[in-house]
């Protein structure tokens, strides 16, 4: 089938030609040959469903779709079949490239294939940059996407499955670059449509008062993004590269599904008082506060600037004895804006703190 397509490379397919998704069995086998541990969307129905959620008006939407690690390309084809204007597949695995590139050839620019792993963009290390690792600016420049204003429409929609092993650190990394407006977020409010594990989703969405799960991680994501659960799909629906068995992580929280979650950065995240340059301090503040959810907020504030706690709380209209775990993400944002304005905090060590990231997958 592939060979045939290659042969026909001279005649570009029209946008209404229907692409064959291939046999499920064959696709499954190909996915299982993948050398790294990954999950793939092979089931056409699932691909359809994802496509549907990316819509509804794929044909009209100007946003570029980045598809992470498509593998055999079932979703890619489904996207194209539904009339997506511009799909960029970022494939980290060399073995899947020829096939995708063949498809790229067939089409008239609707599909671009890049040897790149979305989850290895902008690494911390300073080794030689070889694909699939890549700097975002190279990727975006090559694709001809330029920096946009924060308030512009969503320029890029990313769809993919977060690799299980680095799920959490990836989400943290994305969070940091989001607040700093670095990496992909330099190019505007990039929308993520990611499959993440159910437990991670539940943590992401934990509400104040849930003292066990409401942490800086969730609070900051909720502060930064509009988060929507699009779909829940059992783990079993995905094909895993077979050499290894991917154990589903145990958790106190329910964890039966992968959740397709849409995270759209809020238009009003940045303002006069919260800018990418001081956002790191906000992140630090929230992390410090929520390290211990049953601590009183006033104590934290007093620690950063003695006696300022009660004053700030009063301004916020909060109770004196409010616990840090009861404060809403939005309130933290307001609180930070007050803190940032306040003269008393200029001497505070809070501003001296620099977030150190010793993870391998860092951010720049």
């Amino acid at each position, binding site marked *: 089938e592939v060979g045939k397509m290659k042969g026909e490379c001279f005649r570009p397919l029209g946008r209404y030609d229907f692409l064959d998704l291939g046999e499920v069995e064959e696709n499954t086998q190909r996915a299982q040959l993948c050398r790294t541990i990954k999950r793939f969307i092979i089931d056409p129905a699932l691909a359809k469903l994802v496509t549907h959620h990316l819509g509804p008006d794929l044909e009209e939407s100007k946003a570029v779709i980045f598809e992470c690690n498509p593998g055999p390309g079932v979703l890619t084809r489904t996207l194209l079949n539904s009339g997506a204007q511009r799909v960029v597949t970022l494939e980290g695995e060399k073995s899947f490239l020829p096939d995708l590139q063949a498809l790229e050839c067939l089409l008239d620019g609707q599909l671009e294939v890049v040897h790149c792993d979305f989850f290895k963009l902008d690494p911390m290390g300073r080794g030689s940059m070889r694909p699939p690792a890549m700097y975002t600016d190279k990727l975006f420049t090559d694709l001809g996407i330029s920096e946009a204003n924060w308030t512009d429409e969503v320029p890029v929609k990313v769809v993919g499955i977060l690799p299980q092993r680095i799920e*959490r*650190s990836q989400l943290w990394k994305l969070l940091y670059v989001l607040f700093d407006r670095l990496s992909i977020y330099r190019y505007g409010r990039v929308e993520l449509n990611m499959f993440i594990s159910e437990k991670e989703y539940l943590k992401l969405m934990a509400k104040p008062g849930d003292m066990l799960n409401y942490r800086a991680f969730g609070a900051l994501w909720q502060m930064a993004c509009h988060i929507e659960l699009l779909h829940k799909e059992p783990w079993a629906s995905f094909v895993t590269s077979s050499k290894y068995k991917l154990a589903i992580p145990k958790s106190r929280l329910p964890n039966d599904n992968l959740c397709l979650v849409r995270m759209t950065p809020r238009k009003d995240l940045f303002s006069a008082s919260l800018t990418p340059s001081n956002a790191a301090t906000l992140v630090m503040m929230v992390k*410090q506060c929520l390290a211990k959810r049953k601590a009183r907020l006033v104590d934290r504030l007093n620690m950063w600037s*003695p006696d300022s706690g009660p004053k700030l709380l009063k301004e916020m209209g909060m109770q004196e004895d409010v616990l840090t775990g009861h404060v809403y993400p939005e309130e933290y944002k307001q609180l930070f804006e007050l803190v940032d304005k306040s003269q008393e905090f200029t001497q505070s060590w809070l501003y001296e703190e*620099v977030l*150190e990231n010793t993870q391998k997958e860092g951010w720049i």
Partner: protein
Amino acid sequence: MSLLRLCTFPKCLSGRILLEISVRRVPYVDHCLTIRNNIERHISEPPWTSQRRHFSALIPKKEDGKKRVWEQSQLLDVLKARIQQLQSDVIVDVQHEKVQFVKASKSGIGASSGNSPKNVFGERTEVPKAGQTISKGGGQTGKGEGKDASASKSRWMEKLSQEKKTKTKKLKQKLGLEDKPVKSSKGKLMLPGTSHKTISTKAGIKTASTVKKSKTLKNQEHTMAASKHEHTMAAAPVAAANVPIRKAKGKGKASKEPAPELSEARNRAEEMERKAEAKAQELAEVEELERKLNQWAVSARPELVQDNSEARVYGDVQRSVRCYLEACVFCGDIDRAHRFLLGHHRMVSRRNLLNIGLYNIMMRVWAKKGSLNQIGRMFILIEEAGLKPNLGSYCAALECMGRNPDCSPHVINRVLRQMEEDGLPVDELFSHCVFRQDERDMVLRAIHTVQPDFQSSINTILQTCSSPLVKDFYTERADAKYPKMAFSLEELQERFSRQLSIEQASTITIHSVEAMKPVTSHMAKMRDLLAVQRLVWHKALVGALREGKIILASSTQKAVRLSLYPYLCLLDEKDYVDIMIQSLSNLPPSGESLHILAKELGNRVHNMFCIRMKGHNQMVDKLSHIYNEYAELLAKDSKEFDVLPRERWWKLEAEHSSGPSLLGDETHWPHMVVVELGTYLVDLMVKHMKVNSDILNSAYDRKLIPVLYHMYTFRSNKQVGFIKPHPILTQMQQDAMDTTLTFDSYVMPMLCPPVPWTSAKFGAYLLTPTKMMRAVEGANQHEILLEKCQDADLHAVLDSLNQLGNAAWRINQPLLDIIISIFNDKGSEKLDVPPPNSEAPKIPRYNQQDSATFTSAEKAHLKREVVNAKKKCSEMHSLRMDALYKLSIANHMRDEVFWFPHNMDFRGRTYPCPPYFNHLGSDVTRAVLVFAEGKPLGPGGLEWLKIHLVNLTGLKKRSSLAGRLEYANSIMDDILDSADNPLIGKKWWQNADEPWQTLACCMEIANAVRSPDPTHFISHFPVHQDGSCNGLQHYAALGRDVIGATSVNLIPCEVPQDVYSGVAQQVEEFRVRDAEKGLKIAQVLEGFISRKVVKQTVMTVVYGVTRYGGRLQIEKRLKEIDDFPKEYVWDASHYLVHQVFSSLKEMFTGTREIQDWLTESARLISKSGSTVEWVTPLGLPIIQPYHRSRTQMLKATIQYLSLQITHDSKERPDTVKQKNAFPPNFIHSLDSTHMMLTALYCYSAGLTFVSVHDCFWTHAITVDTMNKVCREQFVALHSQPILQELSNFLLKKYCSGLQSEVKSKKFLEYRRMLLLLAKVPQTGNFDLQRVKESTYFFS
């Protein structure tokens, strides 16, 4: 039996005690029993009651009546709570229960009052009946009423047994250490005054039913004698009985095992035959091995297997209870200790965790008070707990009797008779017990009342170490010339008293070398400010601590909960506060993690406590006495001795047996306690140390702000609690440049020769507790192993430690002055003198206003800069502080002669105890140290100095000795110039590998050549001899590899062989071959393969570096080569590490095999659930302390700390670590053995000898002798069948207990292990004796 019977002797004092006990006991018994009966009937029969018999015990309290009421009401409360808890389940039943409960307690009291005090033994016969009733439980009715067949019963039962299970589990894990008491499920387990017994009897093999039947009978005939501890006694016979059966089964199974299926039919028969043959052979082998093992098993001492597991099961809990009791006793809070022990005793689940030693602690207290009453009661408690009194118990009893002048001889006689019955000879009291204060005299007094001419005959015959390696050393002493020290007896004694006073003070304050800097007015101002602040903080902290203690003291109602309170009463409040304030000056500006800070504080308190305790035990006088006599052995002006320091000390101690023991028996606090205490102190500091915010800048508003902050840092998604100093504090400290440093006394080298190690528990410092074997926090498996060792087997190890510790040192003053001058100037990274903080990079701060103008790439860059700068700053700070400590200590010692006491790690590698300044340190510290004793250079000394100099430069590594000497002579001008003008001359020395030692050596040579006769020049300079790749040397010798042995200089050659070049050559050969084949990367690498590229990997491969690590090492080297194309680094390093490994395999055939055998053995042992252990040829037992970690939560107010406990020997071994670490650890245990042997034989040759692992030091004149000894001992060591002995040991250890598991899978694994352990790798045909002529073996 025992003491109970003893006490009933009608006319004696203790008889009366029992009488009065009984009077009180009886009423209480019945009362309590009835309550229990009623409840338990309704609970139906939980499984655990069926084996146990309940009867109650006395409550040994003066105000018995009051207490009883209190206890009753408490019991009522608890029961009520329990009932309420279960109410939701069955309301009707509970009401029923309540009614009965009240009734029962009334009737109980009524009944009890009827009992007459005379009925001493009546109680005994009655009690078992009650016990029976309970155990039969179920349908039977006990004392009357009670129909209980409600349906809910079983649910209750389930629930209760479930709760019980989880609770005991929890308890075992973290007894009492939790802040939170275990929930309300307590009720059912509270058995105030009840004792529980396990009826096991000798009839361990009998079936359950017979046990049950026999129970009634036994009960009636005073079951006490028969009762034993559940875990030890009952289990043993059963296990023993099982063995033969299991074995038979196992074998049967193995032989019957079906042959695996074969795919092809025609091959089948043939294959089968072959397999069968192989199998038969294997089986024969296995059988042969098992036969051997059985023989060993017969000859081995049986008790070894048992106590091993027993000791460890509850080790942690017992340790925390013990420490708690000791702390309570030390601070005089006997009431608390007593309540605590009783509290545990009364709860079955907790009582099971206690051991005899814990009861003995309280016994000792009562003995001090001379209260025979209490001693009697303690014996009853011990009895109830199903424990057997041991030497310590009897010791306390006798001591108490000794304190009572009018104690009847009958009582004492009874005790002595009882001891005899228990198989405890009286003599052992004096040889095994640790005495404090006047305890020994009191015990003796008691014995003398009945046996006036008794004399403790301490065994004065010294056994000798059994290892054949040191037979000569111990037996042939005629030729030995044990070195003397260059001091008179009086001098040594004077030094001792100075050292003693330092250790008694427990901390020492010295001048920092920075104090030499001129004082500016700003500095002076800051110093004053800081001093004032310290006073303020001191006051605030004392107040806060006092308050905190009051709260803690009053808030602990639960007697069984461990509270911090006693640990806060061990020292004066002032001492705690001093410790806290001192810790402030060590705090780095970037802060410190709470865990580390807490650990430091906790350890310092413990240390101080141990020293106080020794003072308290009044052993200092005795120590001085013995030391002063011991010094004769070392002093130059006293007679010659033909004994070793250890032997001398031992003899002196035996001669001066009266008074307290010198051996401290303090227990090391569990890690948890240390951290909890430390966290408490940190919490105080954070809350109560404040400073005015305008102290440095009056423009700011005045606010009282805390000096320390508790915050979190985030490291790869983990949050770590951190304590940070406020920038104001940091600035004050930096500007003030404190002139003094305060250290714990053990940080300083000793001013007198250390106390010789006479056992694994005693030696080194005078008062500071020191472990002979260092271990991870809280790990005690080493200690247990060492304790089990035969004393004599450790002698060689102890003696070598003593010899290393006895080397006296002095400061090389001219060199120290040069280093300090650079240090106080700007430092020098090149010369490894860390620059001050002022030289650190400024941390870039990006201004918010500017930030708009930056592009995001610039911002990212800036951010990275900030992170890097911060990292660099904190690194520089810690390096600087480290150097400051070292130099300040050296400077403080500049006019002194001093000693480094030694101990070792778990593999036997030796280390000096003082942590900062010692001869193991960097080039800088080594350079400022010289031997205190000087020896003339003699005929060859100057040449050795010159060769040593060349060695230090790192040049001429492949030249012969003559070549190196010639080179040295050719650069004499440079040498003299360096010596004369180190900082303004040609600075030749600065380019050496070890610049400071090179400079020192230059100066020594200059002095020597300028002296009138260099052969008479007195040199203090240590000359080093290094093993050439020592790990590989041992491997090559083990495997008798000819090529390997040649390349690491085990075979005499004209010039030194260099294994690194050898490997590089081999790699190059492989490369050429691959390049010809057209391999791209091999072609790229042309001309880049050098010694340097492979060196580190070859060096570390012996110590277990993996391909992964090796690749990183090579990558680093390749990156250093400018010409090498960067894009190939990864591929090239990958290729090279592969080639290096193959080359090594080619050159050291045997090595690889041995390494693989060791690794695989360790893997199988670890997989079978055991920890890898072995014994060095010198008899030192070694155990690898790698276990899976578990986390323990410490719920402190400031923060919850989760502690990773990796030492826990109950946990399964960490297989990966056990296997990867075994080969290197085994080799280290061999190199340490070689070093110890060399040390011992050098000692009898009269040499000064010290070592840095595989680098041996001595005076220039004695280098030749040392080299000879070193080679001879290497040959002697490897002439032993080391691997065979290891194999035997492992087989004995891991296969004799395990054999014949019934399950086939286990059995197969076992058999695999058996075969592997027995299969010692083959060796090559290298002639070991040739080492003796090899000049470059160590050079």
